[in-house]
């Protein structure tokens, strides 16, 4: 998979029936509304084809037979047909709505479910915004086009057929003459629609560049001001908005010229009927018959003119719909691509979850890992941890600490080597089992919109209110939560953004604690909490951690000191291992790291502390 895959894709030129067949397979549950819709399309086309004939009959009755009663009858027929049409219109919109909304729902559901299974390696390569567009706008486009395409396909072809039949029955030679307009009409429509599609794409592409520019202008406003780049930036932007003007004009002009040409071509049909039909009527008159069997009546002439006048409409609509289908093809491809992606990490066929409740033993055996080929993050890594142990991972950024945690959680799988839980390769167990044993608190705490209570309960869905409060108390979050506007019922906002980072960390810690995990993982979990609070938390969660295995990534001395074992990770390997005292005495990596990093942080703590005191 290439990295540019999610950038504005180049669209395919031609319709790909195989792709659409596969996409349509998802629409199977909506066969009935779609079939009903198609049927309604045929009925509407039939009414459309009959109405000019009825007006023709009215004229003939009125002019030749002078029968007022007949006129009334035909007028009522007209009204009846119109009513049938209105009912059909109501019916096909409802059916289209059923199919479109239901189909969109199904596609979204399937897409969402697939996203829940896909591995992080998939997410790493795609921005969240890109994924959101797949589930929202792409699903809308694909599900929206299908019923209307089907309707116009059926309606358009039936109408063309119906009108042709009606005209041929009325007068074969005149009908054939009018129909000669059709081929140039069709060719012209196809050509123009293809060009319109191209200009529309150019407009869309430029538009996304404009969006990016505005984003940059706002995000970088201070830099722009500091560099005094306002004018230079504006000149660059004006080039872009000028480009947009050019493409939009090209698109608008093309659209403005298309319809008049099509209508004029349509009027050629009307002109032909008037000319040829007029001659026929004239000839008939000269021959002396009021209703010549071979000639044309006025009613027929008027009917013909009407047919010729709307002959172009189905042709034009069909061309437009095909273009829309083509435009939606990229969206269909992307959705189908998403649904076709197989998760890299998934349960093997023969997973067997162990009966035993706890995890007593974790082992990394010769584990290697690389996010990108050739750039190993972990290299032949070995680690054993027993229940009751707290293991601290320290080392420079990019050394592989977070990767170890991600592998343990099976967010990724080792490229070589094994990870064993209780002596069994974890790939032989289900993901759900493993992940329900974990309590993870990550570097950037993520909360979901909803109340504080709901967020803590996310760790264990059946936890009672008392248990929620207890967990909060344990991590020292109870105090601040009660201080919020509505206490535990306070809405945390989107992504938890109504809370500070420190508060979010405490809530996510409570969420992990309430899960009563077998393996506890804290990746910089308390970095934004002040030292005093952190000490309190430390003491409290020790009781929770008793008998469990915990992995802690932290910078703070207080956190690291209390660990049973400290591993210094550098360039994907353990370079030092031991207790705090042992490592300090060794005066190696840990000592140096401590000097550089911990001292700086301690000092910052002190500064903040002094600021608060006074």
């Amino acid at each position, binding site marked *: 998979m290439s990295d540019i895959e999610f950038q504005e894709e180049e669209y395919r030129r031609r319709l790909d029936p195989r792709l659409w067949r596969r996409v349509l397979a998802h629409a199977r549950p909506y066969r009935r509304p779609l079939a009903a819709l198609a049927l309604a399309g045929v009925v509407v086309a039939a009414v459309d084809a009959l109405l000019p004939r009825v007006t023709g009959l009215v004229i003939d009755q009125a002019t030749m037979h002078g029968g007022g009663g007949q006129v009334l009858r035909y007028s009522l027929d007209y009204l009846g047909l119109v009513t049938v049409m209105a009912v059909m219109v*109501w019916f096909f919109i409802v059916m289209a709505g059923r199919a479109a909304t239901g189909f969109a729902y199904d596609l979204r559901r399937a897409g969402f479910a697939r996203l829940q299974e896909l591995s992080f390696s998939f997410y790493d390569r795609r921005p969240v915004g890109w994924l959101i567009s797949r589930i929202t706008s792409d699903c809308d486009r694909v599900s929206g086009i299908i019923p209307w395409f089907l309707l116009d396909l059926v309606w358009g072809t039936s109408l063309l057929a119906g009108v042709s039949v009606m005209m041929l029955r009325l007068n074969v030679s005149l009908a054939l003459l009018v129909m000669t307009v059709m081929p140039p009409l069709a060719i012209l429509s196809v050509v123009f629609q293809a060009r319109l599609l191209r200009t529309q794409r150019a407009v869309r592409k430029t538009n996304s560049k404009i969006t990016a520019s505005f984003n940059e202008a706002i995000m970088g406003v201070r830099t722009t001001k500091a560099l005094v780049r306002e004018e230079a930036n504006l000149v660059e932007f004006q080039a872009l908005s000028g480009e947009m003007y050019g493409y939009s004009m090209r698109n608008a002009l093309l659209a403005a010229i298309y319809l008049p040409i099509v209508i004029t071509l349509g009027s050629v049909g009307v002109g032909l009927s008037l000319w040829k039909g007029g001659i026929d009527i004239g000839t008939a008159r000269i021959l002396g018959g009021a209703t010549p069997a071979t000639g044309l009546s006025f009613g027929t002439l008027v009917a013909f003119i009407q047919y010729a006048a709307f002959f172009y409409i189905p042709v034009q609509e069909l061309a437009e719909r095909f273009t829309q289908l083509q435009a939606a093809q990229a969206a269909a491809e992307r959705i189908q691509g998403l649904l076709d992606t197989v998760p890299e990490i998934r349960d093997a066929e023969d997973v067997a979850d162990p009966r035993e409740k706890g995890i007593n033993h974790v082992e990394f055996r010769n584990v290697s890992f690389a996010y990108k080929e050739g750039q190993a993050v972990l290299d032949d890594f070995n680690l054993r941890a027993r229940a009751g142990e707290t293991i601290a991972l320290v080392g420079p950024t990019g050394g592989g600490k977070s990767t170890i945690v991600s592998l343990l959680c099976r967010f990724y799988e080792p490229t070589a080597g094994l990870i064993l839980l209780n002596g069994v390769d974890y790939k032989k167990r289900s993901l759900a089992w493993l992940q329900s044993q974990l309590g993870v608190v990550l570097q950037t705490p993520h909360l979901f919109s909803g109340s504080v209570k709901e967020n803590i309960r996310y760790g264990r869905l059946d936890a009672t209110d008392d248990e929620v409060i207890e967990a909060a108390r344990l991590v020292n979050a109870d105090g601040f939560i009660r201080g919020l506007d509505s206490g535990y019922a306070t809405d945390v906002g989107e992504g938890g953004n109504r809370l500070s980072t420190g508060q979010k960390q405490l809530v996510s810690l409570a969420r992990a604690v309430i899960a009563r995990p077998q393996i506890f993982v804290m990746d910089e979990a308390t970095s934004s909490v002040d030292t005093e609070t952190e000490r309190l938390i430390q003491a409290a969660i020790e009781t929770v951690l008793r008998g469990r295995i915990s992995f802690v990534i932290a910078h703070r001395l207080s956190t690291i000191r209390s660990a049973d074992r400290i591993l210094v990770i550098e360039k994907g390997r353990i370079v030092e291992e031991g207790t705090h005292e042992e490592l300090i005495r060794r005066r190696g990596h840990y000592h140096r790291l401590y000097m550089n990093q911990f001292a700086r942080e301690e000092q910052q703590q002190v500064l903040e502390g002094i600021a608060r005191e006074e």
Partner: protein
Amino acid sequence: MSSKDSKYRMIWGLMEGFRLRYAAAIGALVLGSCFMYMVPLIPQIVIDGVLSGPGGGGKPVSALVRRAVAVGGGREYLHAHLWIPAALLVLLTAIAGCFTYLRGRWSAMASEGIVRHVRDRLYDQLQHLPCGYHDKAETGDQVQRCTSDVETLRQFLANQVVEIGRAVIMMAVPIPLMLALDPRMTLVSILILPPIVIFSIVFFGRVRHAFKQVDVAEGRMTGTLQENLTGIRVVRAFARQDYESEKFDARNSTHRDLDYRLYKLMAWYWASSDLMCMSQKALVVAAGGYLLATGRLQVGAFYFFLAVVNMFIWPVRMMGRILTELGKATVSIGRIGAILMHPRETNPSEEERRDRVDGMGPGGAIPSHSASGGDEGFSGTRNGEIVFERVRFRHGGERHIVDGISVRIPAGQTVALLGPSGSGKSTIVNLLLRFYDPDAGTIRIDGRDITRMERKAVRSQIAVVMQEPFLYSKTLGENIRLARQDAAEHEVVEAASAACVHDAILEFEKGYDTLVGERGVTLSGGQRQRVALARALLGSSPILILDDALSAVDTETESMILDALRARRGRHTSILIAHRLSTLMQADWILVLDRGRVIQAGTHENLLAVDGLYRRLWEIQNEVESGLLDTATG
């Protein structure tokens, strides 16, 4: 109401310079419709005046038809040359088509031109709005105003403005023609028109909330989706996929149901308005047929009415829709206007700038200036001397973030700022850059009060590197060169080397031509800081500010950068904000800040000599080091 008025006035203002094009478009529209309505006259004239012959139909032919036939060369001639009216019909359609094209062209020129102008103005405005505005505004919302709201405006300008005109003209133009032909039929032809218009307007007014509900439901669904995707690690860590799927499913199905309800509402609308429109035609057929049968109408005239009703009835039923869109457009215009109307960053008037010169005459009373013992004084030179005089700044809050700071930084010297977060360090920098203006006190650069200088003039004196620097989506080379466009190749490399980023840049496949940002490479925080530093060093500004600008750079690289900076000492007046004492101690002068005040000032040695925060910090650093050994031995 008045706010609505002002919105329309704003639209009118935006049309400035494009009004002529709109007038032309409307002219083309009127002419186009006139020709369009003449088209069905041709078959009418042919049928009634040529084919039927005198007394052939019912009622005697109208004067209009008679005259038209006479102009055409008489009945006999036209009868023998029926291709003439046929060709005329095509020609008239083509002429109407030309006007339709011109209408489209001119209205596109007007609307696209206005929108281009609006985009440029928005972009320009955003760059000139004060930082205080950007602090409060949300980026996503601002971008939306500049893109989707502008698109709504464009649609309004391109389609609705002309569409409203079209609906009116489509009705107005044919009525005199119809009246001339047959007043009774005219009445019958427009009988159902008012109910259709009223129905359309009432319906769209009523269903507006249904549209809104669907929008809200869609927003909720997208929100849930986004939260799930950004929090996917948490979801996995707690194995909550099923729970999440249920949550999404609830939003997804609510959206589906509301959307389906909207479809059903629209089904009623289209079906009933179709029924009304078609009934209007049925009415014409019935009445026309009756008049025809009783000899009071000609066949051609009957055809004409049928064709004309067909032409004006369809646009009319779109009235309600257009009005709904109009409502949406006014909302968007309000949102765009909020940006465009916001006052920009102020600049001193000519007069104020002159005032300063007067004040600066010989013996000009600037206490700090003489107090500073200025060796150069004010002589128009640009050296980068900075003076803060009792500067206070509140930034909208209760507390003063900068609370009476007075400092003089002689040209060429380096001053370090130290203090806890919130002590006002960055605010001092922001005030110096005139991102904000102080509530009280004055700031001078080379003796000039910066509030009396153009903001751009102030800023071009200063090169600043921020903690989270912003790089444009250009190449690395272009980003560095922004500071000085005409810099030579070797100068760029020199600056990059001083910032210790040259080697890192060469490691990229395309070196200095590597594109930054979404479409290019993602740089680490430390790399971004160093590129921004290179940019700052390349410029020739007399003042250099590093606002915690090396926080993401590792210690070794940092000391290399500091060495490079030391080699350039004297070229800039520098302000250094950092957390590491080892970084700060090299400055000529150190200020310790707390709550917007300077609580200690002096050189490293001075400050160590007195009991105070600085010495305590220094001791703590040493304590930490020895404490390390304590734990090791203890």
